[in-house]
């Protein structure tokens, strides 16, 4: 049944604007109206695709080639998407070949950036290059020595620990596709770890979540990450003891808005 007279329908529309939750959907008997069944189905399809669409590492490298940074591609020890999903431990380790490849690039670096597919290749395909384009100038302003940018396939967050250690970097920032939600299949996360080495837990990291055009903007996220990196070097730590107070720093630089990216 279409159960609402028009004024109520308008009131529901006003309520629905208060939350991204799926409220005021209407019903047909006990059931969802067809339009909502299809809207949900489409969102789920996009979230599923974000997990399973093969990662196009080459394409990401090409997009990053316009930026002033070298790239190197690596793979985790997970040989397939299926095994990647079943065996998180494999996604946290480099393949034997990739370990050798990174050993050859070892140097004296402040920061290693890792772009990793994680659970949403869509997030990386759409967001990695524009986010990094905004981030690099902020890092350069800090005078950081950057390791070659690593593009990692079938990777979990903790893969960055081995990458950072192999490259000889004092810190590692992993930009990774987050577990896709129904309303956010393209969400990028950034995890910062000081003194990376295998065996660290997530309590040793700082995280910025929901980086995407409909969530935290590239500009805001780059500012936050750059702030965290500066603080991590100043205090020689990341994790639960480093609170994200970049909003205070942000207030301090207003009213001139954000630093130009």
């Amino acid at each position: 049944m279409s159960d609402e007279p028009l004024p109520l329908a308008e009131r529901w529309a006003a309520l629905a604007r208060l939350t991204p939750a799926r409220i005021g959907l209407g019903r047909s008997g006990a059931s969802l109206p067809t339009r909502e069944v299809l809207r949900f189905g489409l969102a789920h399809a996009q979230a599923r695709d974000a997990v399973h669409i093969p990662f196009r590492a080459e394409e990401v490298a090409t997009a990053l080639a316009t930026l002033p940074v070298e790239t190197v591609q690596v793979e985790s020890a997970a040989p397939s998407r299926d095994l990647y999903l079943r065996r998180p431990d494999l996604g946290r380790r480099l393949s034997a070949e990739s370990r050798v490849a990174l050993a050859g690039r070892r140097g004296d670096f402040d920061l290693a950036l890792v772009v990793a597919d994680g659970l949403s290749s869509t997030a990386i395909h759409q967001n990695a290059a524009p986010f990094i384009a905004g981030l690099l100038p902020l890092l350069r302003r800090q005078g950081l020595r950057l390791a070659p940018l690593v593009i990692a396939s079938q990777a979990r967050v903790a893969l960055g620990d081995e990458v950072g250690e192999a490259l000889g970097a004092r810190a590692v920032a992993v930009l990774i596709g987050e577990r896709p939600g129904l309303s956010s299949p393209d969400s990028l996360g950034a995890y910062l770890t000081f003194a990376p080495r295998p065996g660290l837990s997530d309590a040793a990291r700082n995280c910025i979540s929901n980086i995407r055009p409909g969530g935290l903007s590239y500009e805001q996220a780059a500012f936050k990450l750059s702030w965290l990196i500066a603080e991590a070097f100043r205090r020689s730590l990341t994790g639960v003891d480093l609170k994200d107070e970049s909003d205070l720093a942000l207030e301090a630089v207003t009213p001139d808005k954000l630093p130009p990216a």
Partner: protein
Amino acid sequence: MAYRVTVGRQTHVFADLKQVMAKATPLRSGDMLAGLAAASMEECMAAKIALADLPLRIFLSEALVPYEQDEVTRLILDTHDAAAFAPIAALTVGEFRDWLCSEAATTEVLAGIAPGVTPEMAAAVSKLMRNQDLILVARKCRVVTRFRNTLGLPGTMAVRLQPNHPTDDAAGILASIVDGLLYGCGDAVIGINPASDSPAAIGDLLRLLDELIRRFDIPTQSCVLTHVTSAIALIGQGAPVDLVFQSVAGTQKANDSFGVSLALLREGMEAGRSLKRGTVGDNVMYFETGQGSALSAGAHHGVDQQTLEARAYAVARAYDPLLVNTVVGFIGPEYLYDGKQIIRAGLEDHFCGKLMGVPMGCDICYTNHAEADQDDMDTLLTLLGTAGVNFVMGVPGADDVMLNYQSTSFHDQLYIREVLDLKRAPEFEAWLRRMEITDAAGKLSTGRGRQALLAAVQGRAA
């Protein structure tokens, strides 16, 4: 002691009891991840055959997780009710399954033995049971609990209204609550997972819920799902806490990783009860669990995840909870890979909990990296509704926009009520009727209650 089973020319050897239990478990990714799963389907059947012949008593003398190292094991064995156990004391695990399915095991008899059933016994027999057995026996078990209403009565199913919001926005949360109430949801609890862990923000949410429940005199309870230590502190500051929440697991070490101990849970329960906010009962605890949590914390002691999950119900049972919720598909495909594994786990958890006398509900859910979809959730909802589940979740449109996973919706609970003729908690059902949200048959109607509740949230948003 090793266990041997010969099948044709092949002899299968199992090193110990926990290996028999693990290898007898229907296949799931978490046991594979832990390296505990049977290597072949025949080995799995051989383990079931071995298990069927073991006396139930063995679980009283042989601890799967060492007694000296684990306070959950000590709780299970030290509080075991020998008198309640007596009627089944002579049975093997296989005979126990036959007995549970038989006419001898009535609702009253099952309630009588519940304190004598250890989690290991429940898990063991579940491994020999098909899905239909898990439904048939669970349906006979009744666990009734009370705070401001009566949950778990025959022919009823309650719903936790879950109005989460990514930034805890009060108007946004209220909008979801009103939508849910108008679908007749919220009798189990109105329970918010807060995005923030700041005590001030959680206090604000508690007051928001308290105000709404008082203003409309809703016979239900609220909960903001925060750590038990936060709830204790908030109670100390005078916050209106109805239910004390905590995630729990089946080993001491896993509970350590959640920052809880049995003593702390008792403190939480006592703090909750001290407020005397319940009107028809004092079941103040709300626990959540889920297969795989112990392995995830590196605290599984080589025991399969389903057995450890049942041990979490022994933890819950000790605190007379109002609600115990297995959040079955939330943990991800490395523990429960697909719809088949999630459905099986949901039925096992519900069965084991009910057999042990625990008020089991289920967050019928999945994440987008699992091989599952809403069709699988429909199947599990239909099965658990049939099995007599105490409560399920009501999430707007089944899409939790804060926790990023899919559960069951306001519409889903309407569906299962219609198909199985399931009622709400009686006090809540009467309230809906008074508010003219539902008609005499419990079907949704359009009355003045809708207007008043809508006005409540619009006043807040203005």
